[in-house]
């Protein structure tokens, strides 16, 4: 009996830590100031209206809008939806991030071919951007000012989160890299490029609150799916499939590590 009480208490204590939020403070270095200045006049804002028009307009072979798409808060309800992704969806019986969920809706509601969307999802640098990029930004922007807090109530959400953690530390390939080799310590750089310290709450919060982002060097909006793909490319690993379970697991891990942060998109990246 005593055992049971102790176990229940331990469980409650453990659950309570899920909700805790680390306070955020601002680094005062020159680069951060520069980023702040750029972020205040972020060209990425321009894509929000485009995403909104795409969301409500009639598109695809079925000439349908995305207003029936359920991102977890009910059909067409976008307020705060991105702050609770990835999450489990009963209709697909899968944990999905924003972009894989968007893909599901574009296929099922609008009648697009999965392959066609994926082919165009990541736009060429210097282009007008892709529909998916604009949509992902618009949908996430409807969670601006809200705290990242994806659910862990479904067993598949917990499985996905743990798989993401495993993958973050998994080393492979001819460079022996996992994510943690570059993102496991504070104040590290590849050449002059700052690296986020993602095993730290503050670093993970930067990840969880700033994507999709305007990427200065590409002149377009980039999404989290793109960010992960590009890391694997640089690690000399094969190409990560857009919207794959591996990508969703990593996003789940990062969003939970960074939970509690206020979402503010578009972010601004170099």
């Amino acid at each position, binding site marked *: *009996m005593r055992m*049971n*009480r102790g*176990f*229940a208490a*331990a*469980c*409650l204590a*453990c*659950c309570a830590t899920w909700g805790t939020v680390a306070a955020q403070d601002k680094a005062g270095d020159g680069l951060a100031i520069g980023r702040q200045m750029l972020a205040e006049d972020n060209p990425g804002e321009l894509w929000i209206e485009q995403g909104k028009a795409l969301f409500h307009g009639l598109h695809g072979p079925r000439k349908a809008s995305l207003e029936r798409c359920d991102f977890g808060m009910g059909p067409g309800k976008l307020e705060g939806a991105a702050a609770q992704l990835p999450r489990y969806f009963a209709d697909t019986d899968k944990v999905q991030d924003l972009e894989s969920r968007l893909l599901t809706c574009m296929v099922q509601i609008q009648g697009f071919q999965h392959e066609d969307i994926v082919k165009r999802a990541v736009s060429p640098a210097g282009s007008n951007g892709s529909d998916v990029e604009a949509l992902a930004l618009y949908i996430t922007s409807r969670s601006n000012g809200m705290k990242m807090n994806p659910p862990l*109530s479904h*067993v598949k959400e*917990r*499985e996905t989160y*743990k*798989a993401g*953690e*495993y*993958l973050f*530390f*998994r*080393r*492979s*390939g*001819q*460079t*022996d*890299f*996992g994510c943690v*080799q*570059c993102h496991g*310590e504070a*104040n*590290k*750089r*590849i*050449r*002059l490029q700052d*690296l986020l310290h993602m*095993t730290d709450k503050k670093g993970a919060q930067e990840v969880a609150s700033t994507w999709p982002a305007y990427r200065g060097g590409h002149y377009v909006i980039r999404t989290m799916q793109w960010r992960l793909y590009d890391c*694997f*490319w*640089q690690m*000399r*690993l*094969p*190409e*990560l*499939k857009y919207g*794959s*379970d*591996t*990508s969703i*697991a990593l996003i789940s891990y990062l969003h939970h590590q960074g939970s509690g942060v206020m979402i503010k998109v578009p972010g601004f990246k170099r």
Partner: protein
Amino acid sequence: MRKSWMKGMLLFAPALIAVGCASYPDEATTRGLAEKMVSTDFTAPTPALLNRLVQDRSQQICSKIADAKLTQEEAAEVVKLARASIRYPSGGLVGDWKIGDKLAHNGAGSRIQRGQLEKRKENGGLCQNCHALAPGEINVGNIGPSLTGYGTQRGNSEPVAKLTYERIYNGWAYAPCSNMPRLGATGHLTPEQITHLVAYLIDPQSPINQKK
């Protein structure tokens, strides 16, 4: 009263476990799920390139999650495997520092994008990404230790050349599971390329060993 409270706890305990921390999958389940994801979620121009995702024994050992530590036995195994992996070039261990200088600043080669393998005559050494190199160079990373003055500090004797060669070929022979890629052992660089990097690091004429 007290008894009924306990009875209540007994009833509720399983429910608490169901929603609580006890319901994370165990390590083996997680590994199974994640490895299945890796085996299906990547594409490559040739099936052979997908093998890059397959971990060798050392990579498995070196993928410790979060704060988990290497055991002494694991570290010893990684060192043993690393020592056994090292191959030496037919000629000397010290090549041409000028070639090594270029290699150290070359971060290209072997990447896969849009169904294509990046084709180069040779892979870059990647050093600049993570290490400070010649004095005054600004565009250098800091994930690894500074290599500025490497040869000035150590000299260019034969043992230094050998140690340097081995640390580039497979640094896990000395620092098991360090962040440093096993550049020779994984085939990213050839033994000959590594001799040029050795020269770049230890030759007194190399920019890395000049005063600012």
